[in-house]
Structure formats: C-alpha cells, structure tokens
C-alpha cells in the first residue's frame, strides 16, 4: 500500500491556520499571481491602464492543452496564418471555420497546459479570439499570451456557448448575462505590456522613447 501523509506550512503572515483555511490557501496559491502577497521587487512600470473587451463566448472545459490548441505538426511554417486554420483542431475541427473576429474563449482550470509553444496563443489571436477567460492558466501559456498581446483573465465564470461576455481587464471584472464575476487583475507592468500589444511592441516603444 502507498501511505500518504500531508502537512502544510503557511507562508509568512498567516499563523495557526485551521484546516479550511489551509485548504483554501493551498487551492488559491497557484492563482496568487497578480495579487501576490509580496511586492514587485525590482520591476518598473508606468500607470495602470484600461482595456475593455466584449464578445461572443466559446466554452471549453478543464486542462485544454497546447497540443489540441495547435498540434506539433503545424508548428514549422513560414506563414503564421496557417496556425489559425488549425486552431483548436484537437477539440473541435470546425472551430477555425466558425470562429468570428472578436469572439472570446471561456474555459475551466489549467488552460494552455503542456508545451511552451507560443504558437498556441498566437493561433488563437490570429483566429480572431479577443480574450481568454479561464479559472486558471498554465504558467507558460499565461506569459506567452501576454507577450504576444492576447488578453486573458483568471476568473471562474459560468457561461453558455454563444453568450455575450464583457471583460474589464483593468478592473479584473467579467460580466455574463447580467452576472458579474470578480477575476484576478493583472499587475500593472503586465497591463502595460498588453496595452502596447505585447512584449515586442512594448520594447520597441520603449526603445523609441529612449527607455532601453
């Protein structure tokens, strides 16, 4: 038999937690990103920004992996539009022909798990997806999406396919059919990257302004 013993120790600031607190804290730990208990230690950024998004929802479940978002065999291409033609092929072969510019994706936990391929968020963006709302994201997908300028927000949202979803990235709010959900706000320095259209455009702008 496999014996298991589990004990949990708190980070600083929380003492003598009861079981429920511990479980909650444990469950929330991976989504602390953006609302970190700590500080942005040596990161510099400008003011906070505002991005509003409104679109029709495509709904997917938990653990949508990068192989179903864009299979490995399509990665080597000189023409990036090819990525959009095969996006989400692993889950819904008709997705790429039915998705409309401005549509957004609502999904469960661990969206974008698997490989580091940046073609995954890129394929979604090139297909016209305006934002991904998910209960949680795999960390590399999260970084990649911001870097290529695909807005995303962590929020636990109840939504039917085709419903209109409104996302206020700056406030960290999502509204579906009159129901308002509080998501996780991006830290300001990531909002700034997203607002510039991704890390490449952000660095180029900084260069033009003589900041780097």
């Amino acid at each position, binding site marked *: 038999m*496999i*014996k*298991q*013993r*589990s*004990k*949990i*120790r*708190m*980070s*600083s600031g929380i003492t003598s937690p009861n079981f429920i607190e511990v479980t909650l804290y444990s469950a929330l*730990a*991976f989504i*602390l*990103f953006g609302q*970190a*208990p*700590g500080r*942005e*230690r*040596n*990161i510099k950024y400008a003011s906070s920004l505002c991005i509003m998004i409104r679109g029709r929802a495509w709904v997917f479940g938990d*653990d949508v*992996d990068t*192989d*179903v978002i864009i*299979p*490995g*065999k399509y*990665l*080597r*291409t*000189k023409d990036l539009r090819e990525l959009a033609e095969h996006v989400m*092929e*692993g*889950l819904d072969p008709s997705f790429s022909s039915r998705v409309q510019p401005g549509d957004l994706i609502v999904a469960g*936990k*661990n969206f974008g*798990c*698997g*490989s*580091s*391929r*940046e*073609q995954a968020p890129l394929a979604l963006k090139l297909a016209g997806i305006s934002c991904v709302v998910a209960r949680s994201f*795999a*960390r*590399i997908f999260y*970084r*990649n999406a911001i*870097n*290529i300028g695909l807005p995303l927000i962590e929020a636990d949202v109840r939504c039917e396919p085709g419903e209109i979803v409104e996302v206020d990235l700056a406030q960290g709010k999502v509204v579906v059919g009159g129901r308002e959900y509080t998501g996780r706000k991006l*830290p300001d*320095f990531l909002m700034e990257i997203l607002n510039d259209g*991704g*890390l*490449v455009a952000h*660095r*180029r702008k900084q*260069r033009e302004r003589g900041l780097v």
Partner: protein
Amino acid sequence: MILCCENVFTFAAESHWGDRLPTISEKILSRASGTEAEAGDIVDAAIDYAMSHDGTSVLAIKAFREMGSEKVWDPGRIVIPFDHIVPANNETAATLQAEVRSWARAQGIENFYDCGHGICHQVFCEMGFALPGALVVGADSHSCTYGALGAFGTGVGATDMAEIYSRGRLWFRVPETICMRLDGTPGDMVSAKDLALFVVKEMGADGANYMAVEFVGEAVERLSVSGRMTLCNMGVEMGAKAAIVPPDASVDAYLERRARRPYTHIHSDPGSYFREIEYDVSDLPPMVAAPYRVDNVHPVADLAGTEVDQVFIGTCTNGRLEDLEVAARIMKNRSVKVRTLVIPASREVYLAALRSGVMETLVEAGAMIGPPGCGPCLGAHMGVLGDGEVCLSTSNRNFPGRMGRNGRVYLASPATAAATAITGKITDPREL
C-alpha cells in the same frame, strides 16, 4: 572545463529573511535579482544560461529582431541545440533551421549544437550548463529537467526568450515550494519514471501550477542523476514551474568534468516549505498513463493486455543510457513483436550504448534506431502514428493528437516499454 573564474553561483550564507526561512528557489531568485525574494514577489532576475532549440529559436529570433535588438546580451550564455526535427524532414524545416544556424553564427553563439548532438535538455546537462544554484531558462516546457542538478530550471516561450537574448534578464513570480518526500526503496523494474507518473497522478495536471516542487527522501536520493532528470522532467506535467532535487555528491560526480563554472550547493532551510507531502513508495508497481491525460495513471496490471502497434523508447524523459540498458536487459535474446523505435537522447548516450553492446542487443531484438533527438514525441518527425494506432511510449505527454491525429499514447517506463515490445501487449516487466 572551467571557462570563468567568477563564482556567480555563490550565495551569501547569512539569511536575510528573519523568521521566514528561504527555499532553494527563493535563494536562487534572490541572488539572481539582487533582492530578498520571497514567494509571491515578482522579480527581474539575471539569467545564468539560456537555451532555445530549432523549434522555439525561430520565433525567438523573429521577436528579437522585431524588438529592435541587434546583439545578444552574452553569446557565451546562450545554448542552442537542434533536436525537435532532426535531421530536417522537409524543405520548410530545413530552411527554418538554416536561418537559425546563420543567425547563431552571426551572433557568435559559442554553444551551438547542430543536428545529431541530441535532445536539448540532455545536451544542456551533459555540456555542464545546468549547475547547482544556477538560474537556467529554456524555451521549452521541459526545462524543469535541470532541477535534477540542483538548478532552478524553468520553461518559457519564444518572446520571453527574445527578451533574454536581448537583456539577459526576465521577470519571475517567486514560487511557493511543495516538498515531496518519497520514502522507501521501490522494487526491481520500478524506476524513476514510475515515481514520476505516480507523483503526477497524485498531484493532478495542475496540482503544482505556479509552484516549485522539491523532491527529497530515500527513494530520490538513491536515484542516479539520470533518474533524477526523468523525475524532474515530468514536473511540468503537474504544472510545476521548477522541479528540484537538492544537490549531493552524485551531482558533483556527474559534473566533475562538465561544469562550465564553479558552483556551490544551495539547499532549502528546514521548515521553509509551503507544503510538505510524504509517500512511501516501497510497494509501488510499474505505472502507466493512459490516453489522453498524463495524470490518468494506473498500475500496469490494470492496463496489461492492451494491444499496441508501436513501442517508442527515447525522449528527454527516458532516452538515457540506463534507460536503454534496462530495455536491452529485457530484450536480450528475444524478438520484438511490434515495431519498436529506440532513439538515444544524445550522441554521448548513443556512443556509450554502442560501445557497451546495448545497441547491438536492441537491434538484434528487432528495434529501429533513430538519430538522437525528440523523434515522434511531438508528432512532427519519424515514427508518428496512423489513424487509430496505439503506441506505448517512454515520453512525457499523451494529449489528443500528440503523436498523430487519432493516435492513442500510453506512457510508461523503459522496462515496461521493452516488455510490451516483446509481447505486443502492455506487459508488467516483472512478469516477463
């Protein structure tokens, strides 16, 4: 070979954290960012070595140029092995590889390893870039493999890599650390891969998302560096940002003639973990992950008898010498019943297996040998599956479409793979 006398990995001995003692990850990210970094902090950290391969380099170079960058921050700290599609299987792949090759030459990238050297993570470790206490980042999700040598190794995408090419720095959220203690001594034919699959099953596909995992305990200490690489490699399959085995004498022995720089061992302070989990793995059976989830793991007995069309032994998870040795031990004087593909993880592994007779045994048994590289693992090179075919593979992912549109992939250890190759059905290697 020591290239530099600057001891960049030394960490000040005294603690700055007051009551809250730091983990390996916090110590490494503190040193690299020049801050007293605590879990939850976001820091801008200096990278010790960066890795990108033939796949991710293409977009990274594109982003690097579009950012307006001209020269890389330090050509001596960028490592580029070609492994994902080697040798190139079509004109597009060949052309993209030629572009990366010529960029690397123009930038003076010293550590460029062309087709044939092996899988990026294996080459990165063999060439001494993954070192205790180092912050090493790869444009590949399995860069968590480097934790086997006590490094903080983590994967990023292409644009983050372009940022590193340009600045040598990147932002990180300092992760909490889960300490996973694996006690006991597993039986014969139960390997690091079985431990890894068991851990992923227990944690789930996102059980460690955004956290670091430290593997400790008797069962981990007994693993060779090769086995630790297998265990850490699968860390990302439970979402971990880094998977680390505290370095010990076996790491020093592995690095003796490889380390690029002097290093010191970094360990977590007692009681510094966010969460501690303990398992006794003495009675762990060989494990298999069934399609289409890496955490869909069962004891081999539950899946025994499942017919397969192909067996694949290789990848950054299980293409090392000890993996091929155990396969050869099982396949000796036997013949494979289904097509069997063996791909050594590197030229070094290939040569060692040739010299020891392991390759001869595998070929005599009927296995095909591919050139060192990723092979069909990501579904883009030789050995992919036909419609509806089943493969038992020693790789790390079995997502839908991973090795071919309607292929079904089971993940297991090299021993289980070899036993399955002999019978044509999923087989417990202890029963052969």
